């Protein structure tokens, strides 16, 4: 059985993929990875389909053992990682030999880290997806002692890395107008754009609360609306004027007005902003936003052109002395010629 054995695991680790499209009409949101770009990066590093499921890790990962030789990739929020005690690079692919221990965590920057395996995790799909959707009772958090089945992997290439767009510490996020944007008075929209928000510690896969100094953003004319469709990235303003960015596991509809919607390509930046990180929002007209998104889609589609061999930094090689740094000279004395 080809599997990853879970010896220890943090409290926020779950299988995710691209989610379950097709169920909006019956009240089930797509769900899936909080940082979709990280899924693309992991798939690119391993040279496999982005449909493969990965482990999404919040705060810390765990201790894992491979039942067979495996390839892994680590993407998203940067976490510490060791394979049999040797520190390995993030945003890179590595070999985990049979029986080796992979230790991941804690998080160093960002919020959602991803562990990908060659062949992908093959947990039982429900409604066409392996994505864990906790609020709907689909799947569950990973617990110690579990054995996670892993798919077949024909490839052998490892030691590759990817220059990833920086997105782990907040920053400027582009938004387009949404259904109710014009229900907010111009001065509220202007103030919203001029405000520097901080990501509240209260954040999860359903939504991320944003804090700011000064008054809230509620608008009397926008208060009384019929419950309406939610898409990921919608920024709802609750009754007390607090903005929430709605994320992958939000409900399908909601009764609070939306002041704008984060571009899908900028949503990973929101997802990965750690508690306290500063976020600002910049309105783009719909057409301009569509062009930015189209360019991002094109960039995501050609990620593989930016994969490069991992150059190991001697400073991170804790077991430096165990390497045969002059193996060429050493092997000369053990060559077949001596056995003549």
């Amino acid at each position, binding site marked *: 059985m080809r599997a990853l054995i879970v010896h220890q695991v943090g409290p926020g680790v779950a299988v995710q993929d691209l989610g379950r499209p097709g169920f909006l009409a019956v009240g089930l949101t797509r769900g899936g990875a909080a940082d979709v770009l990280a899924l693309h990066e992991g798939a690119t590093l391993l040279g496999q389909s982005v449909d493969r499921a990965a482990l999404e890790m919040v705060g810390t990962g765990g201790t894992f053992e491979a039942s067979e030789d495996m390839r892994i990739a680590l993407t998203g929020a940067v976490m510490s990682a060791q394979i049999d005690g040797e520190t390995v690079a993030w945003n890179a692919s590595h070999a985990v030999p049979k029986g080796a221990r992979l230790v991941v965590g804690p998080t160093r920057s960002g919020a959602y880290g991803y562990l990908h395996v060659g062949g992908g995790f093959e947990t039982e799909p429900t409604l066409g997806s392996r994505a864990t959707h906790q609020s709907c009772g689909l799947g569950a958090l990973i617990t110690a002692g579990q054995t996670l089945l892993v798919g077949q992997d024909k490839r052998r290439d490892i030691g590759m890395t990817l220059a990833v767009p920086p997105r782990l510490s907040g920053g400027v996020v582009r938004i387009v107008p949404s259904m109710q944007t014009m229900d907010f008075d111009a001065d509220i929209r202007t103030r919203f754009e001029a405000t520097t928000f901080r990501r509240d510690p209260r954040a999860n896969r359903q939504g991320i609360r944003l804090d700011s100094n000064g008054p809230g953003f509620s608008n009397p004319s926008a208060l009384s609306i019929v419950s309406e469709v939610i898409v990921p*990235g919608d920024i709802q303003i609750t009754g007390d004027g607090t903005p929430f960015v709605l994320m992958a596991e939000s409900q399908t509809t909601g009764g609070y007005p939306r002041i704008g919607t984060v571009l899908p390509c900028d949503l990973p930046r929101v997802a990965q902003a750690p508690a306290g990180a500063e976020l600002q929002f910049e309105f783009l007209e719909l057409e301009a936003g569509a062009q930015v998104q189209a360019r991002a889609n094109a960039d995501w589609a050609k990620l593989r052109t930016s994969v490069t061999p991992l150059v190991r930094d001697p400073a991170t090689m804790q077991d430096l002395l165990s390497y045969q740094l002059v193996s060429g000279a050493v092997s000369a004395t053990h060559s077949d010629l001596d056995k003549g």
Partner: protein
Amino acid sequence: MAGMETLPFSPLIRSVGLTGVLVTFGARATDEANRAAIAFRGAVDALAWPEVGESSSTLVSAFFQIDLSAHSFSMIRDRLADLLASRDWSATPLPKGRALWTIPAVFGGTRAPQFNEAAEAAGLSATQALADLTQTRLRVLTLGFAPGQPYLGILGAAWDIPRQIGLTPNVPEGALVAAVRQVCLFAKDTPTGWRHVGQSAFACFRPDAEVPFPLAPGDEVQFAEVSVAELERLEAHGIDGAERTVIA
């Protein structure tokens, strides 16, 4: 409230982020707006436009998931506007193939403790309230909040009772709760401000079943009063006792 719209509402076509397009038929949750949303969604689905990934309908709107970074919103808007103008959507028959469900439920007593309170809030006798809840053919206005969970309507004007200010901490799965002329049938245990007027054994979301979501927007639901003993019998057998027939 039906009949209280004084100004005609012109349907609105709006973009929803870069993820889709919403067509809205009313500013408030009226029967006409809901019928129009369901009928319009059905008509667009029948056209099978390649740009539409999936569709849904809410209380008053039809939503079409379309990647607006790949397809021009103005072009989609114009096509939707042409279709909108082609007929009166609130008078259009609902899509074919809808189901009529008869769902057994207990009303009042310990299994539905807020029945009397709700009847009182509606200004109805218990007998009249029970007749309204069991003789009205309700329509699935929309599904949401939890997967497969239906909002059913529309009850008579007396049932325009507000939500409670305080939440009832935990109303169980299968509960019928009432507010704002609607009945919601809970898909899971939920804290709520709606009043717990009935209790069924109906599961709205069956993740491992062949039909995970039994109800669809536009389906009709009629509740049939049963005794507590009958509900307990259904629960003990893990069945809901519901009957489904296709509306011709």
